[in-house]
């Protein structure tokens, strides 16, 4: 029973990070109809920035400050997103999908090397916070408290995002642009601005995902590419362009992965991809997707 709780926590931990990555990917697709292959690298960037902020630059400071450093990775990823969208991606909205995928694939290759250039080939870790928070007892088992914080941040981020999109004025503009870009533009919405903001928010979420995971595991090269493929599974299961879908998809993938790991570890990834294929066969647009 206690073991079940621990598995559940692990599933939720995984789901909340996945939700942050896949939610950003889905938001960007929903608004701009572009699948950003470089999205995983923004996640990795967030992880690396936070890791070196906590583990290297401010390694000696007091713990209260260290918590404030976690969002730094998210801000860095968001800043990069705000630069990338208007300069590199904007010329491609009217071009066929092949070119959109290719240009983001090019960005992926570049960002992969930028991270290698700045941080070198070795993993960067920032375990100070993780160790300071200690662990708690779950029955006969112990479980790190930090992981619960990650779950809480993931949940809060989801809540904020929902409130932002469905309860604010900007959210209305965002949804209007997503539904019909031309009409929104004709009604006076500054579509370019909405695009920059949506892309920045998407990148912020990916960066936050990386930033909150990094105290419990090191930032390593290639983590972005792995994360991207997993978040593809999430959006395929949940439906591309839907935030609810990203949430449900992340929960499904998180639970399935935890089950697969504890029961047949070799098939962990294969099970996830097969689930994605099965969902696509049954519901082509994903569980929450709109057929286009």
């Amino acid at each position: 029973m206690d073991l079940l709780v621990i598995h559940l926590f692990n599933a939720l931990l995984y789901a909340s990070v996945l939700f942050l990555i896949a939610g950003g990917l889905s938001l960007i697709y929903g608004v701009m109809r572009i699948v950003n292959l470089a999205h995983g690298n923004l996640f990795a960037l967030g992880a690396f920035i936070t890791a070196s902020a906590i583990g290297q630059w401010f390694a000696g400071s007091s713990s209260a400050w260290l918590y404030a450093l976690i969002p730094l990775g998210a801000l860095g990823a968001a800043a990069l997103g705000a630069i990338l969208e208007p300069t590199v991606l904007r010329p491609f909205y009217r071009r066929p999908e092949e070119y959109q995928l290719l240009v983001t694939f090019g960005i992926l290759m570049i960002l992969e090397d930028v991270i290698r250039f700045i941080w070198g080939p070795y993993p960067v870790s920032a375990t100070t916070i993780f160790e300071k928070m200690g662990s708690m007892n779950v029955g006969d088992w112990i479980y790190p408290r930090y992981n619960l914080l990650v779950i809480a941040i993931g949940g809060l981020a989801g809540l904020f995002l929902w409130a932002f999109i469905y309860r604010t004025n900007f959210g209305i503009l965002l949804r209007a642009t997503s539904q019909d870009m031309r009409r929104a533009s004709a009604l006076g919405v500054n579509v370019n601005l909405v695009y920059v903001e949506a892309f920045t928010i998407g990148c912020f979420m990916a960066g936050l995902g990386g930033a909150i995971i990094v105290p419990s595991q090191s930032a390593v090269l290639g983590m972005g590419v792995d994360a991207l493929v997993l978040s593809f599974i999430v959006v395929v299961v949940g439906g591309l362009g839907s935030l609810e879908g990203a949430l449900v998809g992340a929960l499904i993938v998180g639970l399935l992965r935890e089950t697969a790991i504890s029961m047949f570890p070799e098939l962990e990834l294969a099970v996830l991809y097969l689930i994605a294929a099965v969902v696509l066969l049954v519901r082509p647009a994903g569980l929450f997707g709109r057929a286009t």
Partner: protein
Amino acid sequence: MSAIALRPAAMRSPLWIAVWAVPIAAVLAVLPWVMDSYRTIQLAYGLIFAIAGLGFNLLLGYTGLLSFGHSAYFGVGAYTVAFMVKYLHVQSMELFVLGTIAAALLVTAVFGYVCVRYTRIFFSILTLALSQVLWSLAFKFFWVTGGTDGLRVPTPKLLGVVTGESEDKIHFLSHGYYYYVLAVFIVAVAVMWLVVHSPFGKALQAIRDNETRARFVGIRIRRYRFLAFLLSGVFTAIAGALWVPLNGLVTPDALVWTFSGEIVFMSVLGGFRNFTGPIVGAVVYNYLKDFAVGFTVYWQTLMGVVLVVLVMTLPTGIVGTAKLLAATARRRFAR
């Protein structure tokens, strides 16, 4: 597209093709005697990727489906050869190719059955996800596949007689094996040429250009897409089979999805709207990558910049741009 419409029908006649193809084949045949063995081996890699690109482009250029999972079929070819060596102790290259075709048909039939139900971005994501299934299996079942250590493949026996055992391996690869690759490449080009200019190929292009109209004409869209998927996968798998002896080793890297991205890159570099585009793209890409890797450890940045600039400024690729320039020059000339 107007540049192609301007070309007179005579330019597509067999005689005209021979005027182009024979000298190119002759040059490719002479090159091992002119270039050093390193460059020849690089050219062999390029020709192999060109076969993969030809297969890939049957889907992208002629059927309008962008696959981001073609590493799966390349890897199926490569691993089939490695398994045949390890478990069946086969040495003959011809048997490798036959085994690869059989294995690729099996895998592409399953994958294709699922994938051709979708088009556009969903097709891309689905092919990517399925290719990652194979990658994760190759990665995790290390007692079968060798995991990240991979499987070693010795030099094969060509046509039952030629082996590299008696001679230097580099010499074997840059001469005997190079000609083998060249022969397969020429056959592959010829077959693909016939396919895309057959009624079947025309039907694929009709589907690409307008699915609804193609359906009204009576083309069975899903079946045609499925057949194109099979053929495309088999071509790419043959490329994988040819690649293994050259590389000497197959690791899960041959299956990873970023390698699929490289296949897409090659086709777009050459120009996926042209028959010869992927061929030129693959050879150029291979030399470009070789240069970039030797030039800097940050070769990915260089390739990424090339890719971004390419799709921004030359969306029709090398061949497309060359044709456009040639057409402009011809019009000037005629005036």
